[in-house]
């Protein structure tokens, strides 16, 4: 065998060996895809007493539209008025009312839920968000609505401060949720102050939110822009309104652009 032929043969076997080694390592490092299930390790949590109750709850959870959620949730509340799962169902229904743009429906449900479960933190937070966002026909009740929203914000903050890490919950998810709720409450406080025409207070709350949120929403920029505008900080207003005008929501963009036009027209 000639020298080049011998070399080619050696190279061939070396490459084959390397390829085999690589393939083997890839095969070894590919785990079986077992579906591993872990079960809860805590003995608390709301319980269904019967299979049909759980099934009814499941249908609410799986509902695909706001209308379907509301209908199924009403049926659940009617059929299982003493269910331990009722709070979760009412919360879901309240959310659906918000999605369906029904202020009255959402507020009524919020009151009902808080009567049933006064320490329902998520309900308190949602009421704090929903209440000040009233349609124009409720303008005459502004003071009453603002006072109610502030009461819920105070109650939610007290409850949030008293909550501690529960067994079975990871510290990371606990702190993330706590932070999320805290930021929601600050936003609600900012919006309530804006509605109550306490503009400096609104600025303080929204500035806190911007400082602590990784991805503030365009609504936050819009409302801070409004708070700056009404408190006389026009350059601050321009900056925030421009950011809001670049957001994804067409409605927010429209409102921001209208405000910017007004700002430029009145103060050019």
């Amino acid at each position, binding site marked *: 065998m000639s020298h080049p032929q011998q070399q080619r043969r050696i190279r061939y076997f070396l*490459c084959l060996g390397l390829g085999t080694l690589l393939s083997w390592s890839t095969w070894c490092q590919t785990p079986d895809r077992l579906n591993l*299930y872990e079960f809860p390790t805590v*003995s608390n*949590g709301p319980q269904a007493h019967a299979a049909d109750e759980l*099934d009814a709850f499941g249908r609410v959870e799986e509902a695909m539209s706001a209308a379907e959620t509301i209908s199924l949730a009403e049926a659940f509340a009617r059929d299982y008025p003493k269910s331990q799962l009722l709070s979760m169902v009412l919360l879901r229904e309240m959310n659906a009312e918000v999605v369906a743009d029904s202020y009255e429906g959402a507020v009524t449900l919020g009151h009902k839920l808080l009567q049933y*479960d006064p320490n329902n*933190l998520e309900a308190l937070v949602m009421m704090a968000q929903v209440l000040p966002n009233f349609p124009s026909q409720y303008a005459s009740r502004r003071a009453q609505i603002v006072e109610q929203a502030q009461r819920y914000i105070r109650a939610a903050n007290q409850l949030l401060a008293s909550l501690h890490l529960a067994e079975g919950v990871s*510290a990371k998810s606990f*702190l993330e949720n706590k932070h999320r709720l805290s930021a929601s409450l600050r936003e609600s406080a900012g919006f309530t102050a804006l509605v109550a025409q306490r503009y400096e207070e609104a600025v303080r709350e929204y500035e806190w939110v911007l400082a602590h949120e990784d991805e503030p929403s365009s609504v936050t920029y819009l409302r801070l822009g409004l708070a700056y505008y009404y408190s006389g900080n026009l350059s601050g207003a321009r900056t925030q309104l421009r950011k809001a005008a670049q957001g994804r929501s067409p409605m927010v963009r429209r409102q921001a652009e209208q405000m910017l036009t007004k700002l430029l027209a009145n103060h050019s």
Partner: protein
Amino acid sequence: MLGSASGTLCLGTIGKTQIPEAPATNQRLLNAGLALTCCLLRRLQSYFVPGLRIMWCCLTGGVMAAVLLVTSPSQLLAVSQNCSGNESSEDVSGWLTLPPTQVAELMAIRSAISRGELLKARELLQIIPSDGQRRLWEGVLLLHERRTFASIRKLEELAQTEESGPIETLLAVNYLVLNQRQLTQQAVDRALKLDPDDPRSHYLRGRLRFVLHDFAGAITDFSSVLTKKTNDFHSLYYRGFSEWLLGNVAAAQTDLTRSVDVLSCQHIHFPFALQALAQLELETGQISAALNHTNLGLNTGGRIRGRGPRPEEIADILLLRGKVHIALGHQGEAENDWHRAIRFNPNLETGWYLLARLYQQRGETKLAAEALMQFQKIHDDL
């Protein structure tokens, strides 16, 4: 969810969640990198004079082999380990949620599900005639697709026409995933009535009893499972933990050691067994053994079945190893481990507390004060 004050706990509050993931991204990247390197080196060798080419190929091959050995140590260790008697067995997730079958078409579906090929399983299911078996496997598939309520609906509908242990145990699995203990107990009771020796029912009842702190009852159930599934590491772990909680340290150590042996042989990541064993060894003065097991817990390279370690899990093992180092008088190593633990899990208040105590003992009051401040900040939030 946050906590129990509001009563709005998620139905499925999961303390330990193991969800299957693709092989570790870094391993895939490494494989791709190696393949690319091989090609590039193959190209490069044309620049070498003929005499050096063979040497270059050998060098390349040697480097590749060394890299692979470093990244896959446990695979090679397993070859050298005596794993006889610990044959690769389907773990509890398999035998709990995949009913056995001898029918070829159903075996294909079962196999597809166990490999995570749920779409394929669904396609295969379409060709099965619409009868009890098909409805059962629809329920199984829905369970694996995490469509828990839909799975329950399918299985409950089937249970009305057919009395069957597998249906009841699958229902029990679904209920337990949703943390519905009452319904789980009812389903398990029905399953045990139909088959008193079913290991699935005993396992589920054992888990329920464990959660409700009936550790003696849990031991009985897991023992029953282990008569049929001797290598089930979950049952070994929970029985061992139950023994430990009842103060039976020797029995606990035996079970936890066996559990760890099975995990090591089968390259399964389940850090709780290692941690529990190492903690027990630390508490009973078996410090070297504790150190070995915490080291093992941290060296999870190589083939892993299921998912790899989470940062919080690594942090927990580092925290524990730090305590082991303290017991051995290695303060420097302990400090390093605790700092690393905090990097993996910045919310690890215990890490800061232990550091504060260490600095205090060493008279480093400024560092102690800083560590204590960090601890207090996290503690107040929690």
